[in-house]
C-alpha cells in the first residue's frame, strides 16, 4: 500500500477521502487553498465505492431539489472535462396506488418549480423506457430524464487526480487519531503516521463522524449514526437493458440500474444498525433477489456476481449536516448523507468551499444546519432510496 508522506503542515485538512472529502479538497485546491486529505484506508474505501451510482433531482423539498440541480450541472460539466462516465439516463419511480401518485404529484410540482422536467407517465410509457419491466401492477410512474448515474470509481479517482494537479495532497492509509487543540483553536492532528500542523479541519468521514467529533471534543448534539445497507451486482448484460434508475417502494424500497460496465446494480430497504459491521448477509441476498425479480422478471436467470455492504450515515431527518461548528475554531462538518451522499457531493463541495473561503454560500446550506437538532428544528424527511 504505497502512500505519500504526511505533510508537516497544511492550512486546511480534510479528514476522510470519500467522494465528499475528495471533491471538497478538489474545489478548495482549485480556488488556490492549501489543502490535505487524510484517509485511513484508500480513496473511496468508506461508502463511496460501495454506493449504488444513482444521481437524482427528484426530492421532496425545495432545498434538496436546488442542491441536486446544482450538483447535476456539476456532474455534467466535470464528467465532460475530466472524462468519466456520467449518464443522464433518468430516474423512474414506479407507482402502484393513488396515495403514491398523490405524493409524487406534490414532489413533481416542487421539482418543476425549479425547472426540473419531471412528469407523471403511464405504465406503458414506463415500459417503453425499460421494456423488461413487469408493469402489471403499476398505475403510473414519475419520470425525470435528466437524473442519472455515474461511476463512483472513475469519478472519485479523476477528482483525486485533478485535486492533486491543483496542489492538494492526498494521504492514504493514514488514520486521524486525535486533535491538538489550544484555547479552543485547532493546532494540528495526530495520525497513525505522525502529526500534521493545521488550523482548519473539515470532518468528511460520514459514517465515522461521531468518532471524529468526540476526538475534537464537540459537545453540540450532532446525531449521525452508521447503518448497514447492502447492494448487489449481476453479470454484465447488453448495454441499454436498464437505462434509468428504476425505483419501487412497493417492492422492498428497491432501486436498480445498469452500470457502465453492464451489470445490474442496486439494493433494497434492508437496513441494520446502528452498527460498524459491514459483513454482507445471506438474508440480504435473498431479499434483494425476491424484490428485483418481481420488478424485472428476466433478472431471474441472471447470475449474482457479488453482494457487499456500506454505510448510510443517517440523521433523524435523513438530511446531511453541513456547516461550521462554533465551539472550535475552525471546524466544519459535511456528513450524514444517508443514501444520497454520492449524488450530492459536487454541490456540497462547492457549498463547503464557499463557507470556508467566504463564510457564506448561495446554495441552501441553511437547510443542513448542524444546530437544527439542538434547536429541535428537524427538517421534513428527505426522500431516501433503499
Amino acid at each position: 500500500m504505497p502512500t505519500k508522506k504526511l505533510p508537516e503542515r497544511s492550512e486546511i485538512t480534510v479528514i476522510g477521502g470519500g467522494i465528499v472529502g475528495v471533491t471538497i479538497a478538489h474545489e478548495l485546491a482549485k480556488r488556490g487553498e492549501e489543502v490535505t486529505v487524510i484517509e485511513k484506508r484508500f480513496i473511496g474505501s468508506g461508502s463511496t465505492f460501495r454506493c449504488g451510482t444513482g444521481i437524482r433531482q427528484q426530492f421532496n423539498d425545495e432545498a434538496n431539489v436546488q442542491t441536486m440541480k446544482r450538483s447535476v450541472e456539476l456532474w455534467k460539466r466535470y464528467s465532460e472535462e475530466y472524462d468519466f462516465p456520467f449518464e443522464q439516463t433518468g430516474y423512474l419511480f414506479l407507482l402502484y396506488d393513488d396515495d403514491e401518485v398523490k405524493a409524487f404529484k406534490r414532489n413533481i410540482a416542487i421539482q418543476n418549480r425549479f425547472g426540473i422536467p419531471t412528469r407523471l407517465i403511464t405504465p406503458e410509457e414506463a415500459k417503453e423506457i425499460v421494456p423488461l419491466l413487469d408493469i402489471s401492477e403499476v398505475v403510473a410512474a414519475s419520470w425525470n430524464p435528466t437524473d442519472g448515474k455515474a461511476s463512483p470509481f472513475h469519478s472519485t479517482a479523476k477528482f483525486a487526480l485533478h485535486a492533486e494537479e491543483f496542489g492538494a495532497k492526498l494521504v492514504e492509509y493514514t488514520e486521524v487519531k486525535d486533535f491538538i487543540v489550544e484555547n479552543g483553536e485547532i493546532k494540528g492532528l495526530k495520525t497513525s503516521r505522525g502529526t500534521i500542523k493545521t488550523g482548519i479541519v473539515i470532518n468528511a468521514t460520514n459514517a465515522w463522524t461521531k468518532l471524529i467529533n468526540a476526538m475534537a471534543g464537540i459537545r453540540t448534539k450532532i446525531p449521525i449514526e452508521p447503518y448497514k445497507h447492502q447492494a448487489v451486482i449481476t453479470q454484465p448484460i447488453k448495454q441499454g437493458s436498464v437505462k434509468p434508475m428504476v425505483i419501487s417502494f412497493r417492492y422492498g424500497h428497491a432501486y436498480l440500474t445498469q452500470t457502465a460496465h453492464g451489470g445490474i446494480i442496486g439494493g433494497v430497504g434492508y437496513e441494520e444498525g446502528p452498527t460498524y459491521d459491514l459483513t454482507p448477509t445471506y438474508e440480504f441476498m435473498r431479499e434483494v433477489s425476491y424484490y428485483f425479480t418481481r420488478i424485472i422478471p428476466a433478472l431471474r436467470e441472471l447470475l449474482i456476481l457479488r453482494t457487499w455492504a456500506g454505510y448510510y450515515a443517517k440523521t433523524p431527518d435523513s438530511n446531511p449536516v453541513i456547516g461550521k461548528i462554533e465551539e472550535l475554531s475552525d471546524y466544519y462538518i459535511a456528513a450524514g448523507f444517508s443514501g444520497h451522499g454520492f449524488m450530492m457531493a459536487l454541490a456540497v463541495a462547492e457549498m463547503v468551499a464557499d463557507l470556508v473561503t467566504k463564510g457564506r454560500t448561495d446554495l441552501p446550506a441553511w437547510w443542513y444546519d448542524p444546530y437544527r437538532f439542538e434547536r429541535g428544528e428537524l427538517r421534513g424527511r428527505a426522500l431516501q432510496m433503499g
Partner: protein
Amino acid sequence: MRPLDLTEKNPSKKVTIYFDGKPYEAYEGEKFPVAMLANGLYWLTTSTEGRRRGAFTFGPVPVKVNGVKNINGRKLVVKDSMRVERQRYDEFQEQIEIDEGKPILRYVVDVAVIGAGPAGLGAVEEIGGKLTVALIEERSWLGGDMWLKGVEQEGFGNPREAIEKLTNFPKNVRVFLKTTTLGVFDKGEYFLVPAVRNDQLIEFMAKRVVLATGAVDSIMLFENNDWPGVFRRSDALEVINVWNVAPGKRVAVTGAFPEEITPELDRWGIEYVVVPNPRRVEGEDRIERLIDENGNVYEVDAVIMADGRIPDINPITQAGGKVYFKRGYYRPVLDANHRIRDGIFVAGSAVSIKPHYANYLEGKLVGAYILREFGLEAEPCIYEEKLRDYEPVARPISKLPLDGFSSEDVQICGCGVTLKKVDDVVKSGITDLQIIKRLTHLAMGFCQGRFCLFNGALLVSQRSGTPMDRLDIPVARPPIKNVKMKVVAGRD
C-alpha cells in the same frame, strides 16, 4: 471413435447433438464441452469484446440451449437432439418462463465439510461415525484433484482405489455432490452454509465448518492465453482421466510444473512438447501454433498451463479469514488449531500446496481438533507429527511479461481485462490494487478474482516495487460462486 476420443465409448449411450445447426456425436451423461472437444471443436462462446473462447481456460461459457440464452455451457450435460448455439457473454434471455421454484432443503449437522478432496475426506474419516456430517462437493465426483490422476500418489498408491476406500462413509455422513456453496455466514449459535444443487437452495446449519476448498491453477500470461484450446491443468486432467478424451492431437505443456501433467500424457500416449516460456498462441477458432520467447514455433492444437497451484483464498476471506504471503502465494492465517476464527477450520491445499497425502493428513488433523472441541477423544499430535515430513511447495514468482509482449493480447482476466488495461492504470501512477481493481474491473467478474487477482497483485508489485505481502488484498464477497437470482429469490 471421435477424433479426440482416447477410449471407445458405450454405443448404447450414443446420441446426436446439434451445435450451431451441425450434428455431432455425443454420449449421454457427457458434459457439453467434452463432447465438442472429442469432435475437435474448441470454440464455444464469444466474449463481449468479441474474443473466441472455449471452456477450459478462464471466463464463463454462456450458450444458447434449445432457444434459451445464457445457459452455463461448462456444466451443461448433453441430451439427445439438444440444440446448442454460440452466443456472446452479454446476451441474456429477455422472455423467461417463471416456474414455481423448488422448496428450500434444510439440514442440521455438527460439521459441514466443504470440499471432498483428500483433505475433506480425511476430516470426514476422522469425525465420521462420531459426529453428524454434511460433505458438500461442487464437482460430480469425490476425491477432488486426486480423482483426476491416474498415476500412483505418494502415501496413497493408486489414487482411485485410495479414494474408494475413503468414501465408504458411515451412516451419519451425508454426501452432497454437484452442490455449490455460496458462503459461510455466522449466525451466532451456528454457521449457515447455503448451497445450490441443480437450481435448488440447500441450507446447512452446522456447529463447525471445515473449508477444504482446495487450490486453483495459476493462469499464465502470454498473448492469446484465452484462446480456445488453452487448458488449465485441472481441466486437462479432467478431460483425460474422467472423460477419456485428449486435449489435442499434439499438446504443448507450459509453466514451471510440467511434471504435474506429463506423466498422465505419457500414460495415454498423448504426444506433447514442453515449452517453458510461451509468448503467443495463434490460430483461427482453435490453436494452430505456439510461439515461445525465443521465436521457436511449435505446431500444436492444445496448450496446457502447468504453472502450479495457489490456494483459493475466496472461501477463506469471505468467511472472515485473513491471508498472508509465503512461499509464493497467499494463504490463510491460522491459529494453533488450524482455524481462521472460532468454529471455522481450514485443511488441504486451501492452506498450502503439498502432496495429496499431506492434505489428507491435514484433514485428519482438523478432524481431531474438532472431536476435541466436542469433548471427544482425539490425538491431533499424531497428525501434527506426520505432517512435519511435508514441506509445502514453494512456487517461484514468475516475472510478468510486461515489456516485449503485446500486452493488449494478454488476458489477465477472463472478463475482458487485458494486461495492457491494468498496466496502463499502474503506469499512470495508481499503484493501489484496491483502486486498480475498481478502475479496470479486474477481479470483479464471474470468478471474483479466483483466477486473476494473483496476477493483478503480481503486476502491481513488479511495477511499483511494493512487496506482495504489503499489498491491500481485496476480500471475496458472497456469493463465493455465482448463483442465479431465481435460486435465492424464493420465499418460504
